[in-house]
């Protein structure tokens, strides 16, 4: 293999890629848009229900309550409470009557008023009502004759929840990598259609050098952009070597898929027709990170699952080589198969 020829082919493809206004724009705007979306999204998770309480006499249970997920703040007056709830300072306001303790002791039913903002969802209104009732049960000393044996499954993330924007990181990384299939597949299919590939193969350039150059440009573009994005959003601050390995394998996967698509497509439109369904399938695993529990076991048949899971585990949970080696191995296996099929079918088209 002649490295000088490969270098020349790479620089030619690079300039051709950015000469296509659509891909040039998508590449630059894509990264900028993802970065903006990332930084606009909340960087923390509000885990608590903040409730305002106005009570001339505060029952001990309400005063001593130290339950995670529930914050009760005492407010000076009924008017101040109404104001705070309307302004969204509290999810609900609770007003206890001044004779609450006496009534409870006499076995009478005191009336508790709850304030909600008009846009409070019904489920929150219902939940606050249930919790206030439960607190009163505790106050009058009516415990349940139930023993609950609790078991927390997975790492307990109370107080250190993953912000939504960090859940989006694997989605963006996969998107950036996979969108490159469109650019590379268009480059190749247009060369095949215009027969410039054949012209190239008449020169001393070999098919192997051609694939090496196309592969390098595909991997380089996808990997470079993904690394740039992850570096800016802090995705490679934990275990950078694993993240870089995963992104590199992802870029190889995108290149293999681009080879496959360009063996079927004739122009940019047909590249898009083939690429978009492929893109949708490859993005599905990221939805599992965004909304955990929505996907079932079949998602493991999608190669990008192993990329998404690795990036998620490492960037969001600090997983190490020991936790993700299997993912990387499977991804490598998928890559070998897809790139081999891609090269084989594309080679036939060259002839």
């Amino acid at each position: 293999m002649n490295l000088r020829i490969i270098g020349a082919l790479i620089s030619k493809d690079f300039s051709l890629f950015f000469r296509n206004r659509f891909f040039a724009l998508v590449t630059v705007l894509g990264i900028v848009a993802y970065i903006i979306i990332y930084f606009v999204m909340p960087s923390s998770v509000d885990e608590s229900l903040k409730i305002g309480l106005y009570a001339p006499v505060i029952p001990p249970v309400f005063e001593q309550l130290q339950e995670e997920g529930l914050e009760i703040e005492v407010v000076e007056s009924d008017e101040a409470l109404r104001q705070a709830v309307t302004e969204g300072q509290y999810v609900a306001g609770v007003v206890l009557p001044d004779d609450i303790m006496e009534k409870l002791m006499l076995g009478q039913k005191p009336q508790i008023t709850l304030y909600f903002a008009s846009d409070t969802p019904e489920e929150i209104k219902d939940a606050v009502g249930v919790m206030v009732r439960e607190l009163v049960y505790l106050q009058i000393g009516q415990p349940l004759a139930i023993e609950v044996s609790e078991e927390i499954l997975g790492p307990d993330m109370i107080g250190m929840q993953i912000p939504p924007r960090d859940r989006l990181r694997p989605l963006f990384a996969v998107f950036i990598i996979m969108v490159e299939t469109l650019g590379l597949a268009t480059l190749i299919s247009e060369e095949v259609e215009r027969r410039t590939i054949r012209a190239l193969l008449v020169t001393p350039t070999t098919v192997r050098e051609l694939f090496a150059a196309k592969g390098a440009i595909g991997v380089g573009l996808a990997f470079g952009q993904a690394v740039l994005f992850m570096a800016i959003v802090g995705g490679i601050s934990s275990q950078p070597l694993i993240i870089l390995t995963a992104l590199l394998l992802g870029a190889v996967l995108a290149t293999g898929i681009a080879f496959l698509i360009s063996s079927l497509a004739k122009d940019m439109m047909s590249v898009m027709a083939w690429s978009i369904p492929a893109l949708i399938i490859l993005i599905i695993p990221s939805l599992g990170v965004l909304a955990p529990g929505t996907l079932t076991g079949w998602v493991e048949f999608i190669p990008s699952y192993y990329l998404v899971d690795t990036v998620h585990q490492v960037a969001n949970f600090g997983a190490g080589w020991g936790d993700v080696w299997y993912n990387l191995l499977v991804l490598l296996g998928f890559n070998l198969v897809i790139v081999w099929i891609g090269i084989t079918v594309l080679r036939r088209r060259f002839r």
Partner: protein
Amino acid sequence: MSLKRVGILLRRELWQGPKNFIFIWAVIAPILISLVVSLVFGTLFSEKPKLGIVDEGSSQLVAMARELPSVTTKEYSTDSDIREAVESGAVDMGIVLPEDFDNSVIQGEETEITAYIWGESLAKDRTILGGTIASLIRELAGQEAPVEIEAITLGDEVSVPWSDRLLPLIVLMAVFFGGLFLPALSMINEKEKKTLDALVITPTTIGDVLVAKGLLGIILSLVMGIVILILNQAFGAEPALLVLVLVLGATMAAEIGLLLGVLVKKTTSLFAIVKFGGILLYAPAFVYLFPQIPEWIGMIFPTYYVIQPIVEISQLGGGWPDIATNVFILAGLNLILIVVVILALKRTKQYAV
């Protein structure tokens, strides 16, 4: 202009169109987006905590939990199923009710239930679920609530669900994606392949070609607009008015498409322009997405006059008096666009107008 020739050209466009990638996507994409939105905002992004239950006997608590508006309840058949569901985050908490649970609770006997908690579940969800389970058990035991609760709603702002807020965006996409892209792409394709030159050498005029391509865009756009409104259960009220607005909206989409088709020479340039300019088309939808944005900002964009009447009729129950002004503005904009297309055609001096 010859209606016969327009008809022949339209028939050809209708025959060739479905083989085009954009035609297929103009049909599939809005339906797909609509389904995803209802899935995502109907279930995935719901703030309700999720409770999983395995009932080893036949407890009433399962049915009671299912009725609760504050919690999403899912049932599982075995302990391992619920463990798996909790581990994957499908539910925030999973409880296993032992056999004869109801009798034990009613008789006040000490009973044990197993609760699995998903490590990533939010503290407030754990609190809500804990309180809800306790409340259900008390109800099952026949305990009378020790308090009376009165809920008062403050202010007059109404909570608009995200699926409703997104409807204008989906409708705009359905109307403008195919309605704009199809005529534009068809024109540019013909220019790239030089078939347009061949066509206008025949008695067919460029006007015939533009009308045929525009009609194709209008038909596709109108059909997709109606389909999306039906899918989102927003077509019930005043269907005749909705169709009128959709026809005018589809006409606007086709006219913009034709304008691009006349001015742009390459497919790649069209994609780049639409990618960049798309924000101007869909901008009014953001006013509905984020009600904090003042409505006058939406009025700057022409597509506002398409979407405002649709939202007014389908979501706010409005009628002709509420939309008349904007419908007239929309019709006026369409007339202006026709003139602009003709001027653009004259200016490019490509074909005799």
